[in-house]
């Protein structure tokens, strides 16, 4: 710690005080760490355990230890690979859209002399809502054929009524848009906050040097904003990989498996098809994917 408490007195007294401090710390940490061990580490070990079993709630008589069988099945499972692909498409497109739109809007709003307050308030609305409620609103009032506003606008724009959630491609586009709608304000707020904290005098100097707006953006703003952008990318990637409620309420993963991200596949396998063992293997695969992707992102963060 950079700001550790005052140096303890030397000698026996110091040792006694340090020991007391350790005991006090242990007592304060114990309840939270017992709870965390019980609700995260223990289930993880349990999950790895169940992933080596055949465990079928619909056919319990066939249950038993199968070793790595579930993982062998997984590697040969087309639905697993397609759900992984859907996950990657969903994550990449929502994260890119959120950051691009959020950054663009933050830059525009930053230049506004009045009305910034409006954006700060309105941006809070989507991010505090439950993704389940957001999904429900979009599924019905926005996207329902002939009833939803989006479809109404599409009809009036001459595109005709579309089956927004029933067509595989449109359904994917819809769930990406819904996620982007809800979480762009997050990127916007974070990037606006870090834009506001950038030193003004650098821009002054750049203006005196007659640097164009684009040059100022590329040479000054973007490099200074990089840590914040990378942080937003990392956080949003982690969330998008385990997105659940908004897709579950809107399409349930369908039509077919068109919007079934890996997270949703693990859920459906475990709780709809009741194959807990195989579902556990899918959840472990999701954890591995999450760790791999975050490893890459953290490496990018360290690289200059």
């Amino acid at each position, binding site marked *: 710690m950079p700001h550790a408490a005052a140096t303890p007195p030397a000698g026996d007294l110091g040792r006694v005080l340090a020991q007391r401090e350790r005991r006090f710390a242990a007592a304060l940490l114990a309840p939270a760490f017992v709870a965390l061990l019980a609700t995260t580490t223990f289930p993880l070990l349990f999950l790895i355990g169940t992933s080596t079993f055949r465990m079928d709630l619909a056919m319990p008589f066939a249950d038993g230890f199968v070793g790595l069988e579930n993982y062998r099945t997984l590697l040969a499972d087309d639905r697993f690979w397609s759900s992984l692909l859907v996950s990657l498409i969903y994550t990449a497109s929502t994260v890119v859209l959120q950051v691009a739109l959020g950054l663009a809007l933050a830059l525009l709003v930053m230049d506004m002399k009045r009305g910034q307050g409006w954006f700060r308030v309105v941006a*809070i609305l989507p991010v505090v809502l439950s993704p389940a409620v957001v999904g429900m609103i979009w599924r019905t009032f926005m996207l329902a054929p002939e009833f939803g506003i989006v479809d109404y606008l599409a009809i009036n724009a001459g595109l005709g009524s579309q089956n927004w959630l029933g067509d595989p491609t449109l359904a994917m586009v819809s769930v990406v848009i819904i996620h982007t709608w809800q979480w762009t304000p997050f990127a916007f707020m974070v990037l606006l906050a870090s834009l506001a904290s950038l030193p003004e005098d650098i821009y002054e100097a750049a203006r005196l040097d007659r640097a164009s707006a684009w040059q100022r953006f590329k040479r000054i703003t973007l490099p200074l904003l990089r840590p914040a952008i990378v*942080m937003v990318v990392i956080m949003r990637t982690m969330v998008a990989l385990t997105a659940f409620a908004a897709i579950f309420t809107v399409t349930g993963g369908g039509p077919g498996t068109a919007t079934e991200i890996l997270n949703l596949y693990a859920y459906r396998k*475990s709780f709809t098809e009741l194959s807990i063992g195989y579902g556990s293997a899918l959840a*472990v695969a999701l954890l591995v994917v999450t760790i791999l992707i975050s490893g890459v992102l953290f490496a990018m963060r360290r690289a200059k």
Partner: protein
Amino acid sequence: MIAKRIRLVAVLAITLLFLLAWVFPILWSVLNSLKTDSDVLAYPPKLFFSPTLEPYRDVLFGSASILPNLVSSFVISIGTTIITMLMAVPAAYALARLRFRGKKFAGFYVLATQMLPPVGIIIPYFLILRNIGWIDTYQGIILIYLSFSLPFAIWLLVSYFEDIPFEMEEAAYLDGASRMKTLWRIIIPQVRGGIAVTIVFVFLNAWNEFLFAVVLSGNTVRPVTVAMFNFVSVEQTLWAKLAAVSVLAMLPVVILGIVAQKNIVKGLTVGAVKGGGRR
């Protein structure tokens, strides 16, 4: 001059479009929740109509009342918040202020627990809670909610504890106050604001959770986010009522979000700053 004006108008149009896009789905739900059944189905959609509170009366006091579900949501969220805070405040204090071996690892562990995908937690917990008969109970849901509320609350609180000057504690120790007394009398009052913000976010996250709730809820314990599904079925969607339920589910979190407005960025990015930035 003209180019500048065109630019200004374009910027204004784009930003207003964003504002509208964010407000509209929420506003439209509110409007639909105030319509009669014929108004809600009108084509083209009606922006102006004579409002009614009928849908709210129906969903709150009608035959399929969601009042018990709102109660469920509040019990789960308040219960989660109380238990989380009781555990997180002492833990965060220790992580922020005390010296002990393994401190760095302890902090990292708290962060790392958030990597585990929720679906990987719910599968084992479903099996365990089923065995001990805790499906469809408050204790079952609240217990598993600690998996995400605790790491969040600990890290958010650590950032507030770190802001207090060390002189305060030292002065108290010199006066002969015990560690526990110092924590209660001197430190906690200093971070009252941070504790309030943390309470808001823990409540908000618990209120909004869905995956655990959908697996663990039943006829006794069913939060409003899950109960909402009663209003959409293959045969018919009860539009106005669904809108009313959505608004009721949104109301508490929107109020809390606006109350916590100044701290929202901090609340949303908690932990991320720690990952390697500040220390």
